[in-house]
């Protein structure tokens, strides 16, 4: 069964990188949220 390209960003490694960057941003947002309101 061939591996199709993803519907966006062109390749799967780019999608994986996007997910990890998103995780880093989420952690940063959570940290800023903690700092802002604690």
């Amino acid at each position, binding site marked *: *069964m*061939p*591996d*199709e*390209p*993803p*519907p966006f960003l062109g390749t*799967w490694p780019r*999608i*994986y990188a996007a*997910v*990890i960057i*998103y*995780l880093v941003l*989420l*952690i940063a947002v*959570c*940290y800023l*949220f*903690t700092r*802002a*309101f*604690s």
Partner: protein
Amino acid sequence: MRPLDWVVLTGSLATIVAYGLYRGRGSNTVDRYLLAGKSMPWYAMALSIMATQASAITFISTTGQSYVDGMRFVQFYFGLPLAMVILSATAVPIFHRAKVYTAYEYLENRFDAKTRALASFIFLMQRGLSVGLTFYAPAIVLSVIFGWPDHVTTLIMGVTVVIYTVTGGIRTVTWTDVQQMMIIMFGLVVALIMIFVLLPREVSILDAIHLAGAAGKLNAVTFKFDWNDRYNLWSGLIGGMFLALSYFGCDQSQVQRYLTGKSIAQSKLSLLFPAVAKIPMQFFILFIGAMVFVFYIFTPAPMVFQRAEYSRIQQPQWRQQYDPIAARYQTAIEQRKAAAMAIVDARHRHDAQAEAEAVTRYRGAQKGVDAARMEGARLVSSAGGEKGFRDTNYIFLSFVTKYLPAGVVGLVIAVILAATMSSSSGEINSLATVSVVDIYKRHFRKQASDRHYLTASRVATAFWGAYAVAFSGFGKHLGSLIEAVNIVGSLFYGSLLGVFVLAFFFRRVNGTGAFVGMLAGEAAIFAAFIFTNISFLWFNVIGCVVVITTALAVELLSPQLAPH
């Protein structure tokens, strides 16, 4: 529960079941019944994965966890996106190309029949033990809140789940999960809006967030590493990743969701969607708990949220201990309310100094509230209640049933039941699949018609549904339910993860090494569980490492057995 609540509750559940049965029609071959004919779109699989993972106890307990301990539990999910990326790149294409019905079937292709049989047996043990708890956890909470008999609640949920799971197979399970997930999110949004509506008029949403933060309830990230602190960034990234790898990569209840995909790409997307959506969802649920905390600053909260236990310590024979604790609690909550109003007033006047002084008083009062609640919990244990009693699971539902309007209560109860049904249907469906494909078809009836295996799958589904209902009562003897569920999982996941890591990344290891490794892994986990005080969160790591090292040792000691 008022008539409108019953209408909303029964209407929601009936819609879910009817829609699921409608979408599941035509599941008349084994391939369609167990894998939906590999026709599912990514968004249905993704929502099904999220719905199966989110059980009722997630919503009941997580909100209470935030009320008591703040939002730091969200860090537990930080490792999940990493695990999903790893699984999308490795497990998904491997399982798809192997054209398997179960993850354990792949182990026979890679190793041998005995490794597959052992992995299947371990899965059946682990999932079979926990599926009863999936039913029991919400049943016991609803029993305490509404007085509904827990066995009746369990039976109603069980029969409903069995009817649609037996009839429509995984296609019905997946589409009902989609419906259930939508009801869950809608119900939670409505609950949060209602909390904001119920706050005093002078307290804005921003004020409420500041009050929660000042009490330490918005502590979403802790960078400091501490072995004794269960939830920090590092334990979340490392421990959470191992747990998610085990759960989404080795547990058939999850693997079966993404095996139904139309293509490898669709299955990958179905895993990457929860990678993106899970943390915001958990953040949102924890935020609801923090806002319930703020609500109870302005509305008198009971010292103990579990009504039956609260009544117990108010009995005459316990009054001598209870009265001084209750007096301290009352004083502390009044001081906290006054300080909170002072914070709000100072914020509105932009008076930073007055706000800082009020925050100091507020935090002092909160310590008093926490201390009194802890003393109350200890008194419950002394008075014959559960040892190490905690009322975390009762906080959110107590709030819902007491303060939310008619209709919304029914909606939230529908959320709880929908979450139970979505988790249990996936579990029962996967148990039946492994029983038929990995045990019955492989070892007892190798050559039979498709119709025979379809009937066997339906019978196995009904059996596991009945088993779950019958054994759900054992939850009574297991103390903290959320802990029991996690311990049961951690006793078995480590060795399953270890054998799949061997299968994917250690090409030279053979079946004997994998088999002996799994046995050693299980032995190590049970030894750690019985003879040490190591937290169960580390069992996954221990099991995985022991499986790999033992298999490599066997490989080294018996080179003649290795495939060259």
